[in-house]
């Protein structure tokens, strides 16, 4: 419990799921206009990168890559009628990673000159050589042909940094005003925007220039019953996305209604923040008097905004090959889905469970042209008809599972951190047969519909998890009957996915996003999306979370 953790933890305590502990990447606070200034051109960046690559080779590196990164962030925070903070940051520097004596070495610098980068490259080689003395396994890189000079840009329609801050403040204060008008006690809202301008060069002959954008609007409303002292909150059903400001222009085609009687609306590629806060204000007051759940076994109908986090924790993480192999044993943990477990061919899930990894889906948080070690991104199967078929891996891991290529999911949160294996977008494929949410619910005799993500916890090998949500509705004899409270479900990953009975069709499919997924020591953050359609799981254990503290 050190002071440097205080900000992040108070954020958690306030229920601010996935909101950034800002500024988290050590960037300098700058004038917003700075975020629109162009960075160095590609000719300059190539010259700088070559200085690093040449210095690394001269110092004895057998491989080197140079990442020149300009990371731009802006966040606007408000509560009720006031702006709490507006911060614009820029972080610019270079990370050099090398292999020398079969060992990784890494160094970074914010002296972005040929001499500064060459010095970092030499230091990286020095570190690699020093560590090679206590190294037991030599690094083996999967082959990767150079791409020459290429570029990739996220297909956004409007750079969020071009929108005046006043418009953003007006939007958030408008959201707050609506919530207060509708009788909530408190409301916080936030808009976070990110632009990663990344240049990657390697001794394989790649010079890759990329422009990546992310945006995340969110809010949290709280209602209080002063007489009883009871309080409840409801967070936004928005998702962070790999898009520009166009995400905040609502389109009717992107709205998906939850089951009849639930009063829930989900969002695809655009978000109606004012509509959602109005629904939240109504629901948060209902939560104060909703019936406390009777614990027991229920069939769960999970909306994509909720199920995305369950996919993240129970499929995305256990299939990270570094965890499987033991590299994260001291912190994030290992995985039940070991190579031996996979070889047994046991079912991960039921036949309707088809899960894919994909780093190419437009508008998602994981979408890039090339990863942070110069591998072109792709889509691949993780689970087919319930069977585990593959993991998430990068260049120095492929040989460990007898494969010859990386999956292109290497990432670093900044120029000053070393890149490592991170989760790609991991999504449950929608059902092939036509199936609406109402049709799905109509077959449930005793169940609970859960929308939005709440409290979440899973063990270090990804067996046992517990999830809450934002809103819960009882399903009886095929119909939504009333709102419930104090709901959390506990399950074992394999039992849960094997209880997957049906998933709605493509028309209900949408992405949930995790804006700040943590892994590694020192911990690094990454952003990732998870798509699914509303899905049914049979006979899941539901607990009642109400307690009395006197």
């Amino acid at each position, binding site marked *: *419990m*050190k*002071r440097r953790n205080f900000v992040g*933890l*108070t954020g*958690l*305590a*306030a*229920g601010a799921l996935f909101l950034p502990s800002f500024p988290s990447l*050590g960037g300098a*606070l700058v*004038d917003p206009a700075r975020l629109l200034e162009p960075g160095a051109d590609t000719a300059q960046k190539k010259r700088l990168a070559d200085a690093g690559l040449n210095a690394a080779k001269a110092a004895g590196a057998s491989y080197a890559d140079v990442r020149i990164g300009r990371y731009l962030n802006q966040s606007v925070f408000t509560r009720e009628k*006031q702006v709490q903070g507006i*911060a614009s940051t820029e972080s610019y520097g270079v990370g050099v990673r090398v292999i020398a004596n079969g*060992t990784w070495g890494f160094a970074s610098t914010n002296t972005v000159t040929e001499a500064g980068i060459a010095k970092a490259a030499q230091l990286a080689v020095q*570190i690699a050589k*020093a*560590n090679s003395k*206590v*190294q*037991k*396994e030599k690094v083996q890189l999967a082959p990767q042909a150079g791409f020459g000079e290429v570029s990739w840009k996220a297909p956004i329609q409007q750079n969020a940094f071009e929108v005046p801050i006043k418009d953003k*403040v007006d939007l958030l204060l408008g959201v707050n005003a609506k919530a207060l008008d509708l009788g909530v*006690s408190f409301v916080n809202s936030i808009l976070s925007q990110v632009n990663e301008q990344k240049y990657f060069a390697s001794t394989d002959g790649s010079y890759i220039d990329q422009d990546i954008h992310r945006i995340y609007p969110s809010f949290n409303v709280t209602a*209080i019953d*002063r*007489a*009883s*002292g*009871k*309080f409840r*909150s409801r967070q936004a059903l928005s998702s962070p996305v790999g898009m520009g400001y166009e995400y905040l222009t609502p389109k009717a085609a992107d709205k998906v209604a939850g089951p009849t009687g639930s009063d829930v609306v989900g969002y695809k590629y655009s978000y109606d923040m004012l509509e959602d806060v109005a629904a939240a204000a109504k629901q948060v007051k209902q939560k104060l008097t909703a019936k406390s759940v009777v614990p027991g076994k229920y069939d769960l109908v999970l909306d994509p905004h909720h199920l995305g986090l369950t996919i993240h924790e129970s499929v995305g993480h256990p299939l990270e090959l570094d965890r499987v192999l*033991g*590299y*994260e*044993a*001291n*912190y994030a*943990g*290992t995985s*039940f889905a070991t190579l031996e477990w996979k070889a047994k061919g046991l079912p991960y899930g039921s036949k309707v469970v088809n899960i894919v990894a994909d780093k190419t889906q437009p508008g998602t948080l994981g979408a890039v042209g090339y990863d942070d070690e110069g591998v072109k991104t792709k889509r691949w199967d993780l689970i087919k008809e319930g069977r585990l078929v593959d993991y998430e891996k990068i260049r120095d891991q492929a040989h460990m599972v007898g494969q010859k290529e990386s999956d292109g999911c290497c990432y670093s949160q900044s120029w*000053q951190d*070393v890149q*490592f294996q991170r989760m790609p977008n991991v999504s449950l494929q929608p059902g092939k047969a036509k199936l609406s949410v109402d049709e799905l619910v109509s077959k449930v005799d005793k169940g609970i519909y859960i929308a939005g993500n709440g*409290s979440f*916890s899973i*063990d*270090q*090998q990804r067996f*046992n998890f*517990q999830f809450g949500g934002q809103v819960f509705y009882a399903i009886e004899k095929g119909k939504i009957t009333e709102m419930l409270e104090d709901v*959390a479900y*506990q399950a*074992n990953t394999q039992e849960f996915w094997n209880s997957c009975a049906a998933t709605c069709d493509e028309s209900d499919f949408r992405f949930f996003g995790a804006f700040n997924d943590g892994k590694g*020591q020192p911990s690094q953050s990454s952003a990732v999306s998870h798509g699914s359609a509303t899905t049914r799981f049979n006979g899941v254990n539901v*607990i009642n*979370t109400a*307690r*009395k*503290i006197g």
Partner: protein
Amino acid sequence: MAILSQPEAQALLKKVLGYSTADECAASLDGRTTGNIRYARNSVSTAGSQNSVSLAVESRFGKRSGVATCNEFDEATLRRCVQRAEEIARLAPESPEYVPLLGPQTYLSPPSAAPTVLTAAARAQAAADSMAVCAARNLTAAGFLDGGTRFTALRNSKGLEAYQQSTNTDFSVTVRTADGRGSGYAIADVTDPTKLNAKALTQRAADKAAASVNAKAIEPGKYTVILEPAALVDSGDLSLLGGLMYGLDARSADEGRSFMTKKGGGNRKGEKLFDERITIYSDPLNAEVPGNAFDGNGLPTQRLGWIEKGVVKQLYYSRFWAEKNKVTATPFPSGFVMSGGTQSTADLIKSTAKGILITRLWYIREVDPQTLLYTGLTRDGTFYIENGAIKFPIKNMRFNESPIIMLNNLEAIGRPVRLAGCLVPPLKIRDFTFTSLSDAI
């Protein structure tokens, strides 16, 4: 350049304030020289170092405030940084929570900086020692060692001057058996790195790993538990005691959205909420775990009783909330001390007829802020105790428990040890609630 002395830092800050044209201006410097090494599968995976100093300037015009930062210190850059803070301030909306900058303050001098720090070679040697312990026993180590020196200096246009240097080294190691059927953990943090014994800590984790093989399943339910300090506080994530201490916030309580909210309005400061043996205070001068002398605003820290004999004596008040409520502002401390007895964890085990020893808790998240209900799981060494001795390892379990309920169900309290910047005793708690089994090892 990364670690500036007090005179160097204050001279630089004085220069920065000299460029200000704002009504009020505050400047701060934060610097660090730290290094780390990470290993897994008995082999080094990554190593890094960080040398950095950054300057933050806050300029204020009336109730408008702007902040800019930079990490270069030539005159032109410093001037630009101040100008940028002023430009941002002029464009900012007025803050309804404005409080004027603090004037000169008097600070304590915590013994927070040791004269020595670990070199890269010493870090590599500690990692090698740790791995050697495991390799010799056919066990696998994954560990992380991170440490160095930091400093913070503040100065403002009202005459406030503050400076503190500190050293800290964190080490943690998870040891697993080669077949993955056993896992153990040890963690420590020290001000003086010469006091860190990575080998002994690894030995402890290795013993737990070896002893945790062939874990039996027991029925989830309410059990007497002995929570080791690593199961009570954590340096990197939410913890049972950390969550409780962070929750002692006056504003959220007064607003009606905290477990500290009083029915009908106001907060529960002054009420007895815990067993009378629970006393928690903060003390920046504690020799074993020295704390910060001031918070980010320059507010001086001092010894402060938060919970005394089970009664909540103090809540955290920001300067704004303190002024609004006409009370003294409380800086949030960098760590806390929980009073205890003289018994070791081994002594607590000896006095236990039936119970569970918990090494570490993991993935703790808040389930209900109204009751401070948390969920999470045991990890890396969970054992069944019978008739005063450890009988067998048990499978990990998920708990759903509130630290408020837990600290009312106190059976015994042990001798405090330093962990995560705090001094925390092992606790024996009755009726700790486990709700399901986990197969995780």
